[in-house]
């Protein structure tokens, strides 16, 4: 990485140096901090600041894997973690593919992950800008109340070392603001949200966050439950981001190897509309989840997964790659020191189209603009492909926005939705998520209401 974190690297190196004969060891050491500020009715509701650190150690011997972690960097605790991980090895089933990543010579693409201005940003200014966000939001519409206005930032330092020659460290920081709104009209209340992301607070667009939060809530006032029918949906960029994120598990090489992906036997097939090209590109500095290394310490890289609708590639860690007789795509994922690596997309992006959302709406005779979805975890099954979510939004008729609608679902299957894509917007929004978003038009989706 661009900046090294020498003390954490030294801790990781010391753990790895203890490896015995025939033993592979990986040490992942991290430290981080965060600030959370919440404003309510012009006052500071809470201010939380914290620092945490920990170590995760993976030991592999004779094809068996053991893992242990602790939320401390106390030397005695680290020794205990190594002992626990070694003890856990004996309970694993031998797996010929088990092993750590081996440096593959792929060069890292330098990016800037640390912002000095954010690191030194004064607390009172963070509080002031959050108050400003609340005030701006309230000023957008007299029917709007603010449930909460938040500022969040975080920083992290990480080092990883392995007996196979991986040795990487680095640090990064990030920040965002968000606001939740309530809009009232007599007995009815609707909700909205808005946010803004930046390398530092000076990049925030508070006006946009406030406007979107107010609009999302107010435009649902008076919403009715629509009749059930098959229709065309336009997913708002935020919803598209959630939709794309779901696809990660179907393109995950480990899921493919274990028979958990409906794409398993489809390599080279037309699985999506020809307009659909999906890449995973953590080397794009615009992506919120951009990174230069993956969860195993290999260089992050750009991978084209679906090109013009044709399935081209699955993402792999070193383990899933060995199982499928291929090479890692630099897609090991890691949920901090408390977890061992998995596989997943890191920064998903669709190649955008050229139309604005207004133009896309104008092209739809009869449909619905989906502003929000709910229950993605309970109504979408990425193994079977069944897709069903709660939704709210606005009806579209003859190319114009009509009545607001809520308390309905949209349903299809993931397989069909990919083929039923009619248009991809050019309105790219780099959201604080693993996937960016833009307007996405999908036909033949079932809307269930009355």
């Amino acid at each position, binding site marked *: 990485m661009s900046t090294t974190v020498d003390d954490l690297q030294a801790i990781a190196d010391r753990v790895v140096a203890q490896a015995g004969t025939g033993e592979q060891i990986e040490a992942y050491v991290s430290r981080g901090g965060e600030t959370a500020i919440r404003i309510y009715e012009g006052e500071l509701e809470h201010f939380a600041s914290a620092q945490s650190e920990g170590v995760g150690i993976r030991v592999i011997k004779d094809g068996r894997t053991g893992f242990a972690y602790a939320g401390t960097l106390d030397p005695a605790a680290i020794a205990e973690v190594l002992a626990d991980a070694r003890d856990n090895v004996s309970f*694993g089933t031998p797996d010929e593919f088990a092993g750590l990543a081996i440096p593959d010579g792929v060069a890292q693409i330098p990016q800037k992950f640390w912002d000095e201005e954010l690191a030194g940003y004064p607390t009172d200014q963070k509080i002031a800008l959050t108050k400003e966000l609340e005030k701006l939001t309230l000023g957008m519409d007299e029917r709007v109340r603010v449930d909460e206005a938040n500022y969040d930032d975080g920083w992290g330092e990480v080092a990883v070392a392995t007996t196979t020659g991986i040795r990487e460290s680095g640090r990064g920081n990030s920040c965002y603001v968000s606001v939740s709104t309530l809009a009232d009209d007599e007995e009815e209340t609707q909700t909205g949200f808005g946010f803004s992301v930046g390398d530092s607070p000076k990049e925030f667009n508070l006006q946009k966050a406030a406007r979107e939060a107010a609009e999302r809530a107010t435009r649902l006032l008076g919403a009715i439950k629509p009749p059930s029918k098959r229709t065309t949906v336009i997913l708002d960029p935020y919803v598209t981001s959630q939709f794309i994120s779901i696809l990660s598990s179907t393109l995950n090489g480990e899921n493919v190897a274990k028979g958990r992906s409906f794409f398993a036997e489809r390599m080279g097939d037309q699985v999506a509309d020809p307009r659909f090209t999906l890449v995973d590109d953590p080397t794009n500095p615009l992506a919120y989840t951009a990174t230069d290394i993956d969860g195993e310490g290999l260089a992050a890289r750009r991978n084209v997964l679906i090109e013009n609708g044709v399935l081209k590639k699955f993402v792999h860690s070193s383990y899933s790659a060995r199982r499928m007789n291929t090479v890692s795509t630099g897609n090991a994922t890691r949920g901090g020191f408390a977890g061992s690596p998995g596989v997943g997309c890191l920064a998903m992006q669709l190649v955008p189209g050229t139309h604005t959302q207004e133009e896309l709406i104008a092209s739809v005779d009869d449909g619905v603009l989906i502003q929000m979805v709910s229950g993605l975890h309970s109504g979408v099954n990425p193994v079977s492909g069944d897709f069903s979510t709660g939704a709210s939004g606005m009806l579209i008729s003859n190319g114009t926005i009509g009545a607001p609608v809520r308390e309905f679902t949209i349903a299809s299957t993931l397989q069909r939705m990919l083929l039923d894509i009619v248009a991809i917007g050019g309105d790219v929004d780099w959201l604080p998520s693993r996937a960016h978003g833009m307007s996405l038009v999908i036909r033949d989706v079932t809307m269930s209401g009355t």
Partner: protein
Amino acid sequence: MSPRTDSPLIEPDVIARVLAKGRSTGAEFSEIYVEDKRSTSAGLDDGKVEQVTSGRDRGAGIRVIAGDTTGFAHTSDLSERGLLAAAEAAAAAAKQGDGGVHTIALQPVFRHPVNTIVQFPDTVAKARKVELLQRADIAARGVHGAIVQVSAGYGDSIKQILIANSDGIFSADEQVRTLMRVSVIANGDAGMQTGYNSLGHTIGFEIFDENDVEELAIRAAQQAITKLQARPAPSGAMQVVIKQGSGGVLFHEACGHGLEADLVGKGSSVYRGKMGELVASPLVTVIDDGTMAGEWGAIGVDDEGHASQKNTLIENGVLTDYMWDYIRARKEGRKQSGNGRRQSYADLPMVRMTNTFVTNGSENPDDIIRATDHGVYIAKLGGGQVDTASGDFVFGMVEAYLIENGEITEPLREGNLIGNGPQVLKDIDLMGNDFAMGGPGTCGKDGQGVPVGDGCPTLRVKSMTIGGTAA
């Protein structure tokens, strides 16, 4: 249950100094929450025990309140120096001026055990835990040749907590959890289907004396096999019969979250201002009970140090109370209800549910199905989500069937149902007499997950929207 050690995680005199430091900038309240959690988990996938994991999470969160402002800091350094530094940071965050010197008089340690632990999981050999996974794998694969993949997980944790505050509260609890889950994939002509089953209680390894791992796995496998024949779920509003147990998720979403006092206080609940009013069918009595021994949401004390309680929220359809944490209750000059919970020492407590359920009615569950001409029978619910301000909520159907002419017929593919909380509660027209709790759940709110239980008898909602694709 008596804890295996009576000595608190941190000495009382250190705690008193830390709490005093928390009030040093003029705050009227300071609190320390200390956690020491040891956990073991093991995962089997694709026929192999992939990994056994040992974990240790230990730290303290310090909360300081001045007026309407809360300052919070947490640390994994449990030395007096580390705790004082965190207290100073929290106090600075809630600074109101010069608070002077405070003396904190702590009460003796309060404990309120609700679960009886027979066999602490850390006394059980890891080999026995791993063996459970292998038994589940074999049992699931034995159900049918179409079972193509099995993943099984085991997890246990022992969490010691200590909570003390400047009002003198000084409480401790030992929270033991043991869990097992099985996920299965079946492959058929129409593609793959999944089955899932889980078991979790706030008890130790004796959970496996009372529950059969093979049966857990077989049920998951049967669910996947049944769904191979499933047809697309219907689209639109119809009668819905919800089976005992996991159906409790409906109430967790339809009214549970909306009855949390923090949301009510900010005017973001559809149930605000409805105290004493009829908000549900008279058949509905909703209770939140943190004392329910062995259930996933059972706790001795909540994460603000108060004894867990059994609270009636809706009685015969009438709203009788909201759920309260200490801070909101203190502000309102009333008693808290044992519902202040947090995910870990790194999080601020909020109003949270524990075990939320609906009590028995009088109908025979078979009669409820027989009384339904055309509808959907949901044998197993998945998770859900609610917008508490509008009351709109969804929940997933993991295992569901059509009801035709009073009989359960064909299995249905998965999907969400959607409804509006107050409307659905009023639309419950039949309540069964077969109450049961569902499986272990994790409730998410404001980025924090806490373990909860849900339960209900078989019941009918006269109209809900099924989010399928079939006409």
